[in-house]
């Protein structure tokens, strides 16, 4: 079943991209979830959509070669992330307000660009729900570079990020530069979202960042283990989702999320059964 993925270059690109985003999306997702910012990924993915729509519009009106949708999406995602951080600073008491502001802004721009281009049909459909055939070799290289940047920065700032996520006040008291680190982190998130969108699609990219963590947090001990389990769950879901998506001709965004949900439900019930068993053993 897997042989097609090595036979055809476009499938191979997709497969490798899948392996990469299966690592980086849950890796950042763990920090996002514990900081209770799960919806930020959604806001940023919609901003990315605006950039993608702009890129598609340019391709249609000006011709290819100016800017590809991948890069225009990447740029708008990063710009959106900067705005989110700024808005969170402005509305200190209502930090979650940044999310609907950015999300609606992203959708608003997307609608305008799509209308200006008189619709995009299949291309846009691929960006919304993901595609197994959308990754070019150049995209793959860009995504690899993004992954190297993301993983390096996370390793370098791991202890500061962890401390900020656990107890921001204490981190600031101890002299951690919260503002800069938040900024770096949200830009990384924007990069990961832009990288993941080709495969999982705009509407489901946040699922790949948060659902593995939702499952892992139930069973892991400690933060490092939560990251590790999240990545394992992310990888299993991406690989199985891509294979099923390809064979049943369903956008992989859908099949990957199904795989994630199955694992999530499994961990919820598995944990319940396990604790029940522990209890009945301790009574015995």
């Amino acid at each position, binding site marked *: 079943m897997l042989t097609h993925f090595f036979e055809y270059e476009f499938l191979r690109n997709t497969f490798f991209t899948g392996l990469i985003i299966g690592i980086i999306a849950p890796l950042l997702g763990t920090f996002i979830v514990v900081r209770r910012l799960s919806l930020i990924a959604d806001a940023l993915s919609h901003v990315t959509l605006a950039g993608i729509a702009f890129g598609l519009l340019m391709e249609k009106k000006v011709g290819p070669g100016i800017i590809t949708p991948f890069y225009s999406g990447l740029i708008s995602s990063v710009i959106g992330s900067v705005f989110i951080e700024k808005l969170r600073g402005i509305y200190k008491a209502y930090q979650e307000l940044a999310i609907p502001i950015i999300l609606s802004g992203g959708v608003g721009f997307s609608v305008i660009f799509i209308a200006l281009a008189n619709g995009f049909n299949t291309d846009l459909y691929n960006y919304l729900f993901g595609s197994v055939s959308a990754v070019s070799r150049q995209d793959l290289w860009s995504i690899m570079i993004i992954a190297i940047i993301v993983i390096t920065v996370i390793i370098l700032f791991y*202890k500061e990020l962890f401390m900020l996520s*656990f107890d921001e006040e204490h981190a600031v008291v101890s002299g951690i530069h919260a503002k800069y680190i938040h900024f770096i982190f949200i830009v990384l998130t924007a990069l990961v979202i832009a990288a993941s969108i080709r495969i999982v699609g705009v509407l489901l990219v946040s699922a790949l960042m948060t659902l593995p963590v939702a499952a892992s947090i139930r069973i892991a001990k400690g933060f490092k283990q939560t990251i590790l389990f999240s990545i394992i769950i992310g990888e299993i879901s991406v690989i199985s989702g891509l294979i099923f998506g390809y064979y049943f001709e369903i956008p992989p965004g859908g099949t990957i999320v199904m795989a994630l949900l199955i694992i999530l439900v499994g961990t919820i019930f598995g944990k319940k059964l396990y604790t029940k068993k522990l209890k009945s053993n301790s009574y015995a």
Partner: protein
Amino acid sequence: MSESIVNMSKVTFSYDDKKSLDQVDFNIERGSFIGLVGPNGGGKTTLIKLLLGLEKPNSGEITLFNTPSNKFKDWNKIGYVSQKANSFNRGFPATVEEVVSMGLTSKIGYFKFFRSADRKKVYNAIEQVGMASYLKENVGDLSGGQQQRIFIARALVSNPELLILDEPTVGVDAENVKRFYDLLHHLNEKEGITLLLVTHDIGTMTAHATKVACINKHLHFHGDAKSFQSLDQEALSTIYGHPLQVVTHNH
């Protein structure tokens, strides 16, 4: 008389126009165990913020370990257990070891990693508070009293000479309050750590601390715990601005 590690002289601090501290002279001697009491809004938290360098005084001078506080760099000498430490997100997946190692994060510095010597320090701090057998447990799964010990360990891991604890016994049951004070005695007497304990529970504190400071905008009392206990109700009521019932616990 032993050496003063903290010296505040004529310190005044206001939030907007409201004076929170007015001409306060306060010092902490090495090795002492000071209980800091006073009514809500009386300036206890402000005093701590000034000691931690989070706020700057409007006037007056603060000296920390013989260095003026605006030039003081050695913040690792001061450990701090916040009032809010116990209100962390209980679902946060972090082991005891991971939480305590946060106490070293800023000491190690950016772009550097934990070494085995650091891990040893973390383990020692956890052992100091008697929680070594919970090393790999999630902090959220522990009881309130145990969590509090972990936060004390986090403050201890960078080897502070002065440990500041802000309202640490709020919401802790009587049994754990006793264990908490036992731990403080151990740290103070055996490890030689100077303690500044902010608390509402005057009765329990005066039975344990060597010195008491009572603050309500001004420093109203600063002396040994025995003479604070003998202050009559009337004097205390004047300081607090309302009648006060102190329950004494003599050990």
